[in-house]
Every structure is written in structure tokens, then in C-alpha cells.
């Protein structure tokens, strides 16, 4: 089965030649069932959320299997691989080989989940952009904490677009390309509309007749008529731009 040259390239799993030959000849029914027991033990230990005791293994494996011997052999087989079988008291578990531990620690980025409030604000920004903080609050009916918006800006899914040309010149928020990328949307208009939300069962079929979902602008980079661009001065005011020695 393994005449492809590939096999020669990858670590041969601790089998030396004599062993291989012995295996080739001595295939008795007993050996076959022994192999099967080893496969079973392997799968059980792999899938378990905690080390598996030999007693538990014995209960699952065919009658008469010498669990300890089987596990010791499996341990031997895995000893040179990227994953080792380790014994903890009377239980067994797979662990990354010690010399490869560096691989594991490298990406310990903790994935965080957005709070429900943040998800709501994000969704409103996506659908209603360009939208000001006051408008977000009006839609949600609750005040939005500064922290929520900060978190969203930190995700890089939300950006400040400009300023609304109304008294107070409030900042308008919108989504970024990273947002589209993360949610696998080609364009912002791919967000489902009211009919589709209803069709997918996400929105009740009986919404009041005056209920509507806005269609986001087709080009997110263009400012709308009532938006002014954000200037550097604005950004400094907002504390987002560290004063720089060199400007470009």
C-alpha cells in the first residue's frame, strides 16, 4: 500500500526493520486483534477531554487485551513523533513533544468576544452608516458608553468617517474594509435587507408597517452630502493623533 516514494521522506514512526519483518510474517489472528486494540486505545485517548485511566480503557477494549502493554508500545511508537503519549499516574494522554513547545506558546492571542452591547452598536453602524453617536443611542434607546465605541475602534472594524454638518458637528462612524473582510462580505450592500432577515427567520414576519432597514451607501469611501471630512485638527482634538514632528 505504501510503495509511493513519499513514505521514505517522512519519519517512519519508530519501526525498525526487524520489527517490520516480524510484523510482515507473523500475522496471526491474535496479532490483528492486538493491532485493532491499539487503534482503539489511540482513538479513545485522542478524543478524551482528560487523561484516560487504564481502567476506563480496559472497559472499552476487547476482552483480554493487556492495556498496560499496549499503551507502553504505543508510547514507544509515538516517542519520536511531534506528539507523545504520556502517562500520568495510571492514565494516558497525548501531549505535544517537549522540544516543540515553542510552537505552541507562539500564538497565545486570546480571542475575545465582543460584548452584546458592542455587537449591537457594530450592527447599527454597519446598517445605518454614516451614523453619529447620538443617532446610535436613539436607535438603541440606551446610552452607549464611550468604552463600547473605543472597543469597536480598536477592532479596526469601525472608523470615524467625518463630521455631520449639523450643530455640534458630531463625528460620524462607519465600517472599514477590515469589517468587510472579517465578515466575508464583498460590499456593505451584501448585508441582508429586511425581507431577507425575515426570510431567514432572524426578524419577525410581523413588523409594524413603518419599520424599515436602511440601505447602506454603496461607496463607503465617499462622504455623504452632509458630512465634512475629518481634519488633523479634529483628530488631535479627539486625542487620536499623537503630535508628530514630521508631517507628510
Amino acid at each position, binding site marked *: 500500500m505504501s510503495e509511493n516514494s513519499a513514505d521514505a521522506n517522512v519519519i517512519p514512526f519508530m519501526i525498525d526493520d526487524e520489527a517490520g519483518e516480524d510484523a510482515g510474517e507473523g500475522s496471526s489472528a491474535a496479532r490483528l486483534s492486538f493491532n485493532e486494540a491499539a487503534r482503539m486505545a489511540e*482513538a479513545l485517548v*485522542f*478524543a*478524551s*477531554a*482528560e487523561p484516560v485511566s487504564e481502567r476506563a480503557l480496559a472497559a472499552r477494549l476487547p476482552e483480554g487485551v493487556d492495556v498496560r502493554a499496549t499503551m507502553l508500545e504505543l508510547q514507544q511508537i509515538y516517542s519520536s513523533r511531534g506528539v507523545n503519549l504520556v502517562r500520568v499516574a495510571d492514565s494516558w*494522554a*497525548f*501531549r*505535544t513533544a517537549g522540544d516543540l513547545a515553542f510552537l*505552541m506558546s507562539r*500564538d*497565545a*492571542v*486570546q*480571542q*475575545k*468576544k*465582543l460584548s*452584546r452591547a458592542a*455587537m*449591537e452598536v*457594530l*450592527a*447599527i453602524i*454597519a*446598517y445605518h452608516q454614516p451614523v453619529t453617536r447620538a443617532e446610535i443611542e436613539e*436607535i*438603541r*434607546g440606551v446610552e452607549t458608553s464611550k468604552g463600547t465605541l473605543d472597543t469597536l475602534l*480598536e*477592532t479596526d*472594524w469601525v472608523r470615524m468617517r467625518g463630521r455631520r454638518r449639523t450643530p455640534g458637528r458630531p463625528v460620524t462612524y462607519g465600517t472599514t474594509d477590515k469589517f468587510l473582510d*472579517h*465578515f*466575508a*462580505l464583498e460590499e456593505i450592500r451584501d*448585508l*441582508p435587507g429586511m425581507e431577507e*432577515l425575515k426570510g*431567514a427567520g*432572524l*426578524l*419577525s414576519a*410581523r*413588523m*409594524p408597517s413603518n*419599520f424599515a*432597514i436602511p440601505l447602506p451607501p454603496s461607496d463607503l469611501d465617499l462622504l455623504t452630502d452632509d458630512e465634512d471630512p475629518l481634519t488633523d485638527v479634529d483628530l488631535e482634538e479627539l486625542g487620536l493623533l499623537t503630535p508628530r514632528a514630521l508631517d507628510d
Partner: protein
Amino acid sequence: MAEASDSRAPKAAPMDRLWADNDESRGVSEPALLIDIAGFEGPLDLLLHLARNQKVDLSRISILALAEQYLTFVDSARAVRLELAADYLVMAAWLAFLKSKLLIPKQADDEGESGEELAAVLQFRLKRLEAMRDAAARLVNRNRLGRDVFARGMPELVVVEKRNEYSASLYDLLTAYAIQRQRRAITNVRIAQRGVWSLKQARDILTRLVGEFKEWTALDQFLISYLTTPEERATAIASSFAATLELVREGHLEVRQQDAFSPLYLRSRTPAEKLPEGAS
């Protein structure tokens, strides 16, 4: 379709193997074969079930016999005042129409698709549905993660692909949006109107069931007779005629009548094509 008490009858229809999980709910049971309308997923599903009882390959099926079986079923259900969903009635109207097309030789002035063509379309849809049902069964019976095969029980790391600190799915986003907008929307409960079926509603169902009418089709008589009781027929004709005109005005439909009291012919209109003369 109901010979199940006959012990020599060929073994349970092949549908049994298709849905191992819940044959029971398919409405087949021994010793007498019963049809439980609640066990069917719409009229096509029922038709497929009836077709299987012809015990021939779907490509050799007699569509006429199938139509008759379906109509008999609907008639008897109505006779015992079993409430049938509109979908079933609209399908009945369509099949009655199809049956008339199959029985009466094609008339010179009948421009519509032939009965055979319509039957072929129906057969195609049945085959396609059956294929999908088979596929679903095969899918369900595959080795499934968390049921038959398992992932590492003690994962040691999460390989982070994009160095996004935050994760959220589109589904999370959409549910968050829908829930809050719904919460804030003033919930003025509206009582759903119940009344005579408008032809527009019937036509929407029909389009879903059998597709568009590409050619002139005299269908309304059938719709009316299946969707209403005899007492309501006059008002049904009036309101459906109004609905038809409405659809014509909106450009979804064309309508034609040769003489007074002769059947109304309808066909769907693609939005692209322009009618030179005003539709009459």
C-alpha cells in the same frame, strides 16, 4: 395507494430507506396505509409519496394517474372537511388543469404548452426533489463530527489565523441587529386577515409549485373551483378577476379572453418585454 393490508404487497415503498430516522412521521404505517397530511412537507412531497406508490421508476411514472390520485385525495379530504393548506389546493387546481390538458387533444387555438410538456416539468421537479431527499439522507448518515468521529479532546492551542483579537460571525452581527431593532419597534399586533384567497396569493404559490406560465394558460376556472366553496364562487370570481387586472396593471401578467364567458387565458410577463398595445 392503500393496499398495505395486503401482505403480499411488495415490501414497504422505497421511501422507507430514505429516512431511517423517522419513517413513522412520514404517514405510513401498518396495517392500513394512512396519509397524514401533517407528515408531508407540502404538495410536492405528497405527490412524490403517491408517485412512489406507483412502484415504478419516476421516469416511467404515469403523471395522469398521479394527478388523479392526488385529486381524489384532495376531494376526499374536503369531503371530510379536513382543513387543507392552500398549497395543497392550489396544486390540486394545477393538476386538474394538467389533467384536462392531457385528456383533451391539443386544440388548434390552444397556444399553451402541451399537457405532455407540463407533465415533463412536473416529473422533473419530482425527480429533483427526490434526489435532494436522497442526498439529505446520505448526508445524515455520513460519519459525523461529534457523533461518529471526534476531534482532539484536549486541544493545546488555538491556531490564530488572522491576528484579530476579536471574533464575531456574521450571524452574531445579524441577530444582534434584528433583536434590538425588533425590541424597539412598537409592537402593534395586527390581526391577520382571513378571507377569500386572492388569485394573487394563489398565483404566488403556484409559481413556487410549478414555475411560471410561459405560455397562455387557462387556469382560473380550476383555481376558483379548488380554492372556494360553491357558495363563494361568484364573489371569488369577481375578486380574482379584479386581482388579475391588478396584476396586469403591475405588469406581472397578461390576460386574454376570446369571447364572452370563454376561459380567461393568462401568462406571466417578464419585466423586460414591453407590450405595444395596452393590455386588455
